[in-house]
Each structure stands twice: as structure tokens, then as C-alpha cells.
């Protein structure tokens, strides 16, 4: 080495001309560059993300979108809970899954996709292909810092809410149905919990069901918003939607931003005199979907004599000895998808609506007159549940008419299973 360069080296050392970097690897800096340069997030935010543990319950439309954003942003630990398997009807909205994934566990596949997207996270993401229950929920919540509710039913939503209050964890909650989405952060500092708004889940369970349909982009949008709020919680940024609820109506393009009440001092869970101290099904009701059962008193299930099997109906169609017509109680939108020709569409909602019963009666009378000698009516729905209740309701409406009312056992699903394997189901 020449004398001159030795002198230069010495001088540089004296002037501390050496390099430095934040507590992030060169790879991490390269990967997170676009959020590292944001003054509100920066190195501090990135390190907070690396130290944060996120629990995502539900790997459906919301979960797909939320998880891929969280892992992409550098979530240190990500646990995904879902016991469902991927079905073809999920793919329009659950954007991390492909056709080849049908039949696999959602949580398992989503974890795979997150790992592929970002192998640099502090811990590898973890899949739990189990149902969330009163036995495992509290422990899971306690093991994480930020909880994301991406579930699709009232039971799981209240279970998570209760666990988050008992364990003092913020709950970033989103939901999506039809053209609408909602988002809020429960139990963060003084923001409300779910029970401050509506204390009893049992009343709500009667109204919600997974049969309602949803537009693909809506859960994706809401899940992305959810990830954003979860990142803000973890990074110590102001959490905009704590105490504020966002409602997105995709059909009209409206965004409602609602300032929520403060914590309810009388809340049975987070209030001063709380009565809910543990996770218990006594406070949560049921996790089964009974779409309309509570609205009709008593047991609405039909005995076997009042039901007709798919194969018997197929035989009856061929023989045509007994004039018979079909009443389809699905929604008009469902009727457009597939069904039986020449059936009369009387949607379940119209049978349950006192004000619509007169119209229903008139339509039935008219149809009965069109078919001379008609003495029997078969009620059809998608799966053979609503049709049983419809028979009860129609027996009341047609009390003075001598017709035999039966329902198609197993609905269109049964028809596909026993008569026509090529019939589409949805």
C-alpha cells in the first residue's frame, strides 16, 4: 500500500467516515423502502411492525386481503385461524386462493401465500385450522397484540369481542354483506366494545345467515382498511376508527363515518358492574345459523308424510297422473339462476310478511284455477329448510282450500344428489 492511501485511510477513520443503518437488515430496507420513506411511519413504524403479533380470525374475503397486507408490511408474527376449506364459490372474493386450492384448508393456504409474499418476517406465519371456541379463544388473544375480526357470524364476533375485553386487546373489526361493508376498532383505549352497542348476540343471531351473497371487491376493500387500522395500532399512529364506524355502500358509492357513543357504563361486559367475566356459551348463544327459525314459534320441521323425495318427484313428473304444481320460495334473483319450469315464485319474505299474504293467496288461487283438478302443491327451496316452514305458512294461508301441501326434501341440493348430478348448485 502506498504512503498516500495509508494517510487517507487514517484521516477517514479520524473523521468517523463509516456507514450506518437502522436496526433493519439490508434486505428489509430494500423490501420495505416505500413505507420506510414515509415520515409518519419510517424506521420506528417498521420496527414496531416487526415486534407486533397479529391474530387474524377468519381466512375468507376479509382475511385474505387483511393478511396479505399485514405480512407484506412486515408483521413480526401473524397467526391465522379458520377451520373452513376452500370452495369454488369462495374464489370470486377470496383473492389469495386459486382453482387448484379447492378442498384445502383456507388458513393453511393463506399462510403459504403470506410466506411466499414475504419470507423476511420475524416469525413464519402460522395456520390454525380449528374453530374458535370458548376453550381456545382467550389464550390465543392473550398471545397477540392486535386482533382482527374477519369472521362471518355473530357468535364468533361476540366471542372475539368478549375475549378482547377480558384480555385488554384492541379488536379491529370489519364485515361485508351484499354491497355493504363496515369497519371499526373496538376496545381501543376508551372506544366501545360490541356489547356497548348491542348487549345481546342472541337477538342478532336470528337475522344473519351466510346465504345472503356479497360482491367480490367489498370484503377485499374492507379487509385492506382493516389491515391499515391494525398497522396504525401497532405502529402507534392515531387510530382513526376507534370510536368511529365506517359504513361503505358500494351501490351508491357512499361512505358514512359515524361517531359512536362512549363506552357504556352499564355494558354487561366492559361496564363497571359487568356480569360477563368468562367466555361462555351462556352469553354467546349458538354458532349455528338458523336463518328464520326464531320468527316462527314452535318446531317447524315437517314429518315424513308431508315431504316428498327428489326421486318420487321425478317419478311424479313423468307419470303426470296427479296434477301438481311447484311453489318456489327462493328469492327472485335465485330463481333466475336455476330451478323448475312453470313453478310459482312466492319468496319466503312474502310468506312471512303479514301485509303480503293477501297477494300470495290471490296468486295461489289463480294458479290452482289454471290447473283443473290440481290437488297437490310441492314447495321447493335451495336446501329443504325454508320449504318446511313455507308449508306451515301456506297451510294457514290456504286453510279453506282442499290441497295437499308437501315440501321437496333436501331442496335443489337433494335433486342434484338423487336425480340430476348435472343440476347446478350455488
Amino acid at each position: 500500500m502506498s504512503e498516500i492511501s495509508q494517510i487517507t485511510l487514517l484521516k477517514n477513520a479520524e473523521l468517523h467516515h463509516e456507514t450506518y443503518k437502522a436496526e433493519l437488515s439490508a434486505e428489509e430496507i430494500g423490501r420495505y423502502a416505500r413505507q420506510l420513506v414515509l415520515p409518519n411511519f419510517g424506521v420506528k413504524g417498521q420496527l414496531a411492525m416487526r415486534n407486533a403479533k397479529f391474530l387474524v380470525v377468519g381466512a375468507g374475503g376479509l382475511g385474505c386481503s387483511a393478511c396479505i397486507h399485514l405480512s407484506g408490511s412486515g408483521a413480526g408474527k401473524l397467526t391465522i385461524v379458520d377451520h373452513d376449506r376452500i370452495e369454488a364459490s369462495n374464489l370470486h372474493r377470496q383473492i389469495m386462493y386459486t382453482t387448484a386450492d379447492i378442498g384445502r384448508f383456507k388458513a393453511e393456504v393463506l399462510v403459504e401465500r403470506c410466506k411466499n409474499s414475504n419470507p423476511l418476517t420475524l416469525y413464519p406465519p402460522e395456520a390454525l385450522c380449528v374453530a374458535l371456541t370458548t376453550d381456545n379463544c382467550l389464550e390465543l388473544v392473550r398471545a397477540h397484540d392486535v386482533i382482527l375480526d374477519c369472521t362471518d357470524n355473530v357468535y364468533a364476533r361476540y366471542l372475539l369481542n368478549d375475549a378482547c375485553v377480558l384480555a385488554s386487546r384492541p379488536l379491529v373489526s370489519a364485515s361485508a354483506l351484499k354491497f355493504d361493508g363496515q369497519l371499526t376498532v373496538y376496545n381501543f383505549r376508551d372506544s366501545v366494545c360490541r356489547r356497548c352497542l348491542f348487549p345481546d348476540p342472541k337477538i342478532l343471531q336470528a337475522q344473519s345467515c351466510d346465504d345472503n351473497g356479497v360482491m367480490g371487491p367489498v370484503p377485499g376493500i374492507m379487509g385492506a382498511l382493516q389491515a391499515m387500522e391494525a398497522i396504525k395500532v401497532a405502529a402507534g399512529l392515531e387510530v382513526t376508527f376507534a370510536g368511529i364506524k365506517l359504513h361503505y355502500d358500494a351501490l351508491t358509492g357512499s361512505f358514512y363515518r359515524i361517531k359512536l357513543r362512549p363506552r357504556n357504563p352499564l355494558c354487561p361486559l366492559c361496564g363497571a358492574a359487568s356480569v360477563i367475566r368468562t367466555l361462555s356459551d351462556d352469553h354467546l348463544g349458538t354458532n349455528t345459523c338458523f336463518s328464520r327459525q326464531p320468527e316462527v314459534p314452535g318446531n317447524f320441521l315437517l314429518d315424513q308424510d308431508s315431504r316428498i323425495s327428489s326421486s318420487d318427484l321425478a317419478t311424479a313428473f313423468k307419470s303426470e297422473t296427479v296434477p301438481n304444481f311447484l311453489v318456489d320460495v327462493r328469492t327472485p334473483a335465485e330463481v333466475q339462476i336455476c330451478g323448475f319450469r312453470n313453478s310459482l315464485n312466492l319468496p319466503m319474505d312474502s310468506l312471512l310478511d303479514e301485509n303480503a299474504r293477501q297477494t300470495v293467496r290471490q296468486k295461489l288461487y289463480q294458479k290452482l284455477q289454471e290447473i283443473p283438478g290440481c290437488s297437490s302443491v310441492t314447495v321447493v327451496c335451495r336446501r329443504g329448510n325454508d320449504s318446511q316452514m313455507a308449508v306451515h305458512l301456506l297451510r294457514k294461508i290456504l286453510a279453506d282450500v282442499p290441497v295437499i301441501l308437501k315440501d321437496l326434501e333436501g331442496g335443489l341440493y337433494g335433486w342434484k344428489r338423487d336425480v340430476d348430478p348435472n343440476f347446478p348448485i350455488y
Partner: protein
Amino acid sequence: MAVIHVEFAGGVELLFDNVKKLTIPLECVGGDTASKENKILTIKDLLQRLRQSYLKQRPELFLQGDSIKPGILVVINDCDWELMGGPDYALAPGDTVVFISTLHGG
């Protein structure tokens, strides 16, 4: 003419023949008798007016007795009605009242 704006979202509109927005003259909220007596009109009166004149399907999914059905959030000028006095909130000209169902799908 003094009016209030009423909106339905999250599925509540289905009970109102799919109408999402209504403009109701304030004097109509109290029905025929109330307006002449200069009575203060509240959310309670609005619920009755909606039941009598606008609610088309399944009233039991919107009201439980005289009160709103649990699961439906009442929003007055972008605020949860609990912040505004609840059912006794006195309606003022130009108010916007939104009824939003809580969604549980995912």
C-alpha cells in the same frame, strides 16, 4: 319548507321497498295533530311516522315495540343517537337521520 332527510343502509332499505333516501317535511313527522300544537318532534315520533307511512315489509325487523330493533344503529347528523339524546332527540330542520343495520358477514 323545513324538511329532514332520512336514509337507510346495510339492508334496512329492503323493509322500505328498496328506498334508500327520503325527504320528509318536518311538520309531517308528527302526523296531523302534532304540527298545529307546535309540539317538539323527536326520533320517537319519526319512528311512528316511518311505521305508519313508509315501512313496507316486516315491521318486526325494524321495530321492537316502540323502539328500534337491536342491531340497527340510529345515526343523527353523523353521530350515534346515544350521543344526541336517543329517542328523545328533538328533530331540527335539515337533520339527517340514517338507519344502518350491523353487518356480520365476512
